[in-house]
């Protein structure tokens, strides 16, 4: 195929489009819809993936959570699960002593929507976390100024607090909070440190947090009221490679600590970010499959449209094909000309589809909470697929044209 061939084919394609404006537009529309579907769906899934992955990353290294029941997505805890015995500081100590695959263990309590007050400013949304000194390292979220909760604080149940950035801004403004007083649910605490900015995860700010000693938390909140208050142990394995063995070790230790009989199921749950990612990937994997099927159907319909208009084009051009053959066009010339004509049609549709899909995802990003993102490969795939549709559905009409007998087709009226 020469460049002249391609130019002649492109010329024929635009000729077809010009002479059958409505029919061509509908054909192009059909392909566009298929490509729009693909681009739009990919952009949403990719956007979600990207946002999710970034948030998982922001959690720091691969931490493992142990709770009294498995907190997996879409699972409502049963009352048996809710009434299980809490995980304790002693459980955490046992893990710290005995599990070789871990470098940090932190038991903690978490209460949502506690009130915090300084002077006349109040916030009703902070998350209150009762921690040990290990929490800082285990969760890779560090204090920026002042100090963190110490072992001494835990031992003496002191009323000290370390504040997240959001609360510093909301309650203290430009004032330096360190050394100042903070009222948590009316109880007086002294601010000893300020956390570095931590960003947010799944739309929830991690900077809207108050850290107090775990024992102080137990003192003021003796009853664990699910779901407002939860207790958990967070564990940091040596590295990503140790996640599996850390989980195994923790399971053994917790079964012994909680006196689970041989053969009985665990009365606690352990999850890791990897597990979280697995669940997430399962969800998006299924979505991908469904969307791929939908896009395939959409493209099929577009492709049938292409085949239809190409058959019309071939029939209408019978005499022209005869003439072209008479002046020296080979089968290959005719075949490639009609194939290129089909590809030009679908490529126009593909490009339009990409543009509209891209536009959709930009609007989506701007005006909806769902993140959307069109990766560079999707553009390539979109164009590739639409051209592929052109080739697949254009092949038969083109072959029909290529095999025409020049004498017969010259005589055709």
């Amino acid at each position: 195929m020469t460049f002249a061939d391609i130019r002649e084919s492109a010329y024929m394609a635009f000729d077809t489009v010009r002479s059958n404006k409505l029919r061509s537009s509908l054909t192009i529309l059909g392909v566009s819809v298929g490509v729009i579907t693909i681009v739009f769906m990919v952009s949403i899934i990719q956007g979600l993936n990207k946002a999710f992955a970034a948030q998982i990353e922001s959690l720091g290294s691969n931490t493992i959570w142990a709770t009294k029941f498995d907190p997996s997505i879409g699972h409502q805890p049963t009352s048996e699960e809710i009434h299980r015995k809490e995980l304790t500081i002693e459980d955490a100590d046992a893990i710290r002593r005995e599990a070789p695959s871990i470098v940090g263990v932190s038991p903690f309590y978490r209460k949502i929507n506690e009130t915090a007050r300084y002077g006349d400013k109040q916030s009703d949304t902070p998350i209150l976390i009762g921690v040990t000194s290990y929490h800082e390292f285990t969760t890779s979220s560090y204090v920026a100024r002042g100090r963190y909760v110490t072992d001494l604080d835990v031992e003496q149940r002191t009323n000290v607090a370390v504040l997240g950035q959001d609360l510093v801004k909301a309650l203290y403004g430009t004032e330096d909070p360190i050394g100042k007083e903070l009222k948590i649910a009316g109880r007086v605490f002294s601010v000893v440190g300020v956390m570095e900015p931590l960003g947010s995860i799944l739309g929830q700010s991690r900077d809207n947090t108050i850290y107090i000693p775990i024992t102080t938390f137990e003192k003021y909140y003796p009853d664990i009221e699910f779901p407002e208050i939860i207790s958990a142990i967070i564990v940091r394995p040596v590295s990503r490679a140790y996640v599996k063995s850390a989980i195994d070790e923790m399971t053994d230790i917790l079964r012994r600590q909680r006196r689970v009989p041989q053969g009985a199921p665990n009365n606690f749950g352990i999850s890791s970010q990897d597990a979280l990612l697995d669940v997430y990937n399962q969800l998006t994997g299924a979505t991908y499959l469904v969307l791929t099927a939908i896009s395939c159907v959409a493209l099929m319909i577009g492709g049938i449209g292409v085949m239809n208009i190409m058959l019309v084009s071939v029939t209408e051009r019978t005499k022209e094909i005869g003439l072209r053959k008479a002046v020296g066009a080979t089968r290959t010339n005719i075949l490639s000309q009609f194939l290129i004509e089909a590809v030009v049609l679908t490529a126009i549709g593909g490009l339009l589809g990409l543009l509209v899909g891209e536009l959709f995802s930009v609007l989506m990003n701007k005006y909806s909470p769902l993140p959307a993102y069109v990766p560079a490969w999707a553009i390539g795939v979109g164009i590739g697929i639409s051209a592929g549709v052109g080739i697949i559905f254009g092949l038969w009409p083109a072959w029909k044209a290529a095999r025409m007998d020049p004498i017969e087709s010259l005589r055709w009226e």
Partner: protein
Amino acid sequence: MTEATIATSQTSAGVVAKPNLVSADGKVQVLIAMQNIWKTYDMGAEKVHALHGVSFEVKRGEYLAITGPSGSGKSTLMNLIGCLDTPSQGDYWLNGKNVSEMDDDELARIRNQEVGFVFQTFNLLARATALHNVELPLIYGGIPSAKRHEMAKQALTEVDLVDRMMHRPNELSGGQRQRVAIARALVNHPSILLADEPTGALDTATSYDIMNLFEKLYEDGNTIILVTHERDIAARARRIISIRDGLIEKDEQIK
């Protein structure tokens, strides 16, 4: 056609009894040599012999008319001469090459290089300019675009239509359309100009003009074959071959 390629085709085609086509200076003088050509169509139950044993030669620079009533085998013969079809039996030498055994793509190349077609209904691309129409054989001949424009303009000059080259067929008269078609046939400098009822769709005055154009092209040295059933059109040629019932009835030099 260069002398080098003639030499090649001579050595490669030595199997069949090859007629002496070449003059002393090495140039192919007998452009067309038909040797006992048969064309049989298989119509299911019976076989129809459109041509049975036709032989003749056409020399370079001849002006030949092929006439005959409809059903005589005239069109079949024209399709064979134009390399749109191959004979069932016999050999056809065109410009030193035996085309009777060629496949579709080889025939396409031969048509592109050796034959310039002129049709009764012009067969121009309706939405293309005169220039583009004339360029068409060059596109399939793989001629680069600058050269193509130049050659197409040259051909349009020969038919006196270069000032209309950007017009589309519907902006041209019947005679002008046929002249565009003749320019298209000439543009590749083919061995033969093969015209099938070239005046069949034209009025008398315009027919006269077109026949004068053929006369001029003949005087310029082109080899022209007219296929027509009109006696007075055939009478413009220098030699007439009359076909009847698949055989040559008469082959006469008239001027």
